[in-house]
């Protein structure tokens, strides 16, 4: 298919002087047809020598491909920058986010700062509002009776949280120079999903992402697993805070019995996968191991509770089952919180986990149905490096499968990626995030709002449907025309836009359509084109 793509700018009817980037686009396109033109050819993994000789080896298609996969879509100048620095230095830069200066580090207010707050302080604030609301309850109800639309303090509190967290998420995905970290943060968030709509989790999802996911996105899987297990947001979402050894000393109220919910998802979704070889017996045994793991109800720790992690999770020995357990054939003696860590170690190192995580990563970065051989190699790396995510990424990025022609532009964008890549392509900083948030909501991908613990999918099957395609076209047209409500920006001239998102290369049908349309419709058509729906 690639062979038939043409360079937008080289066609005769664009008589205007060809900008410099367009010339670069043209020559790069020439080299493409040699390097990855035929489907029969072996995919060309850019060699390390391409680093020294960037004029020749790294084709523009490969640059676009790597930018598409390691970021939320190219911004103006990105293609040129990666072409200049070379593909592998770019990959290495992105694999080591700690070495990229992060402009968000110096921001200590607004949505970014809100996402750094301590969960237990937020809980205290919530409890305080709840108490004062009881006092004001009658006033509030009176207003309701009279049909007045007053927002309660509580609704206000939660609404504010929701906006802040989603805004912070969009700010980072759009603007962070640590793009791969953001791409992986989104991946892991969905893997360890917590839904914003469950009571106090509305106040916690932003901190959860910032405290338990982002710092570990490219680290060891075990650390990531531990961080999610030790965060109140997860312990509340999957009910483990209630998980209690029946008849234990501390059992009472809504904490008086075994709750298997988290134990089950911990194996089914977070580690082994549904076919990972565990039984219902194992679920119960893991639930017993997890008894007593919850979070503090107050900033000051109640007597008897042991702090776990840095964000308010606690271990309550009085609700723990200290009997012996057998998980996946291995004996655990009742030692308290140490058992939890031991179980996480075992699950993180399990071959089923290696395979399941590798499969999901390959699906996210390579193809909806990822090549089996690639998954196997990634899985091997996972086991050899004790679950080092960066190493698994590296195996994937150096694979011929990743660079195969059929795996370029083969992924259908999720709504989040579509929205963020549009804004990035135009290259503006939103002043009002609400139209972006509304669009995500309408598309069914409101950030943090997926109900069930399996998280939003990233496959085409999940997102391609008539209703949403039309809404994407609507959104693209609005953004491309510079008409996004609440935002002042000038969309770039369409050739510049075309160069940013695809090095100027589009299908003949797109080129012909654009040629026949007036100037003001050309950028909207590019963002609404079938090409821009994929990456």
């Amino acid at each position: 298919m690639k062979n038939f793509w043409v360079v937008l700018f080289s066609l005769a009817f664009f008589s205007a002087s060809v900008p410099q980037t367009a010339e670069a686009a043209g020559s790069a396109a020439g080299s493409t047809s040699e390097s990855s033109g035929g489907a029969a050819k072996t995919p060309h993994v850019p060699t390390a020598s391409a680093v020294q000789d960037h004029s020749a080896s790294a084709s523009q298609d490969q640059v676009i491909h790597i930018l598409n996969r390691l970021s939320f879509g190219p911004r103006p100048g990105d293609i040129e920058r990666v072409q200049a620095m070379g593909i592998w230095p770019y990959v290495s830069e992105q694999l080591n986010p700690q070495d990229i200066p992060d402009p968000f580090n110096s921001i200590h207010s607004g949505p970014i700062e809100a996402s750094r707050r301590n969960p237990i302080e937020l809980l205290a604030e919530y409890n305080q509002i709840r108490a004062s609301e009881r006092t004001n309850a009658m006033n509030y109800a009176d207003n309701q009776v009279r049909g007045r639309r007053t927002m309660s303090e509580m609704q206000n509190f939660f609404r504010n949280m929701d906006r802040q967290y989603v805004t912070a998420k969009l700010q980072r995905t759009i603007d962070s120079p640590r793009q791969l970290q953001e791409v992986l943060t989104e991946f892991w968030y969905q893997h360890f999903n917590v839904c914003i709509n469950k009571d106090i989790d509305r106040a916690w999802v932003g901190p959860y992402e910032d405290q338990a996911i982002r710092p570990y996105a490219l680290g060891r899987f075990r650390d990531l697993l531990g961080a999610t297990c030790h965060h109140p947001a997860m312990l509340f979402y999957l009910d483990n805070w209630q998980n209690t050894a029946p008849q234990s000393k501390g059992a009472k109220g809504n904490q008086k019995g075994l709750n298997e919910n988290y134990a089950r998802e911990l194996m089914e979704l977070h580690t082994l996968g549904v076919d990972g070889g565990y039984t219902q017996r194992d679920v119960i045994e893991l639930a017993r191991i997890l008894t007593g793991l919850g979070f503090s109800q107050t900033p000051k720790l109640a007597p008897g509770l042991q702090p776990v992690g840095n964000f308010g999770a606690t271990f309550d020995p009085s609700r723990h089952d200290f009997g012996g357990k057998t998980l996946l054939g291995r004996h655990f003696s009742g030692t308290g919180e140490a058992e939890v860590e031991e179980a996480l170690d075992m699950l993180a190192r399990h071959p089923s986990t290696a395979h399941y995580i590798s499969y999901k990563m390959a699906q996210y970065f390579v193809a909806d149905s990822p090549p089996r051989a690639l998954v196997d190699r990634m899985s091997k790396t996972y086991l050899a490096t004790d679950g080092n995510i960066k190493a698994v990424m590296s195996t994937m990025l150096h694979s011929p499968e990743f660079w195969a022609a059929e795996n370029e532009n083969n992924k259908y964008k999720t709504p989040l990626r579509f929205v963020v890549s549009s804004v990035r392509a135009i290259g503006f900083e939103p002043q009002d995030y609400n139209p972006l948030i509304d669009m995500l909501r309408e598309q069914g991908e409101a950030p943090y709002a997926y109900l069930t613990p399996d998280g939003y999918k990233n496959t085409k099957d999940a997102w391609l449907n008539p209703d949403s395609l039309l809404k994407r076209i609507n959104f693209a047209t609005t953004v491309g025309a510079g008409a996004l409500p609440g935002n002042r920006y000038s969309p770039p001239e369409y050739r510049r836009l075309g160069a940013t998102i695809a090095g100027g290369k589009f299908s003949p049908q797109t080129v012909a359509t654009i040629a026949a349309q007036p100037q003001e419709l050309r950028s909207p058509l590019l963002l609404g084109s079938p090409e821009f729906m994929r990456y």
Partner: protein
Amino acid sequence: MRRREFLGLMAATSASYLVPHCRAWAIKSDQPNNGGKKLIVVILRGGVDGLNVIVPHGDPEYYAIRSSIAVPSASLFHLDGHFGMHPSLSALQPFWQDKTLAFVHASGSPDPTRSHFDAQDYLESGVPGSKLVSTGWLNRLIAQLPAKNSPVRAISIGPTLPRIFSGPATVATVAPETKDHPMVVDHPAIQKAFDQLYLGRKGDELSKVYGEALAAHKEVNQALDIAQKQDEQMRREQIIANRGAPLPRNYNYFGKQIAALFRTDPSVQVAFVDFGGWDTHINQGAAQGQLANHLTPLAAGLADLAHGLGPLYKDTQIIVMSEFGRTAHENGNGGTDHGHGNVMWLLGGTIAGGKVYARWAGLKTAGLYESRDLAATTDFRSVLCYALADHMRLSTTALAAIFPEFQPTTDPFVRA
């Protein structure tokens, strides 16, 4: 009568201790769905207080445990000597008299959760207790309807697709206003440009999906246009009747809107709409007050819907439900807290109406669920299965696909 056969079948199976599986219900439903049957589902989010909607005034305990919020017997519309309907539902009284309105009381989910989040999740996934069913049961229903040429078979009122509709089958979302979201493709020149961009791309799935999208959008818009004109005509007539006083248009407009969509677009078979504001922890009121104020426009909207359907009413079932009921006792704030069993409302031409069905365990502590809530003695899916099997005429396999692993053990249609 189909219903009688159905009940006969139920009686036979339960007597013989066979499990009357959801599939068994469909035995006489093997004639294929002719496509003319319609289903409308209304969810009241927040947990409506069913005990104050269909009031068990014949249960002496009711007045004892709800001293300030009980609806006085004198203000109720008496249904059968035991139950009475809240006065704010007066718009629905004619349907009761027509015998096309019924209630299944003490119904609900087998899952004990009192979390809005989880309970709504289960109500919409149709699989209580499982957090891993990503599709909604209405979406699974669409997949079981006979394939039609038209792209639009299901309509969701509201800007976003609710959980109950999530899944692979296409659902059109319609804004709860008079017209569909204006789309750039409504502009002829822009549509032409996008047609040229998308149509006729051989081997590109997006090309096909774009074509379907456009057709669906036009179909809905056309129907809404007609609906709006009809509504304006009606309003003009009403304004004349009211000597020029303009009429408020509140959220009961949903009734007219859905009715018009169904009338003008025969391929639409399923619709969904939801309303919030039922979480009455504080000062919920009795015959008047907060709950009453929410019930009035809802009843008016349902009546508008039933009337607006016209001849289609006989082919339509409307089901109103909520994620859970509320505590049997009132709380210290003149309200009620999250409870368990509730009442389901059934309205439509094929309903064996004029009856309140229930396995009534009573409001004495011993009969209450966990000593505090109305027990859910009928699984909500039993009622839904009946609607799908007997009304929508879905086959054995279809029902199993919509409510996997569900085995109803009780007939929902017994009298209290």
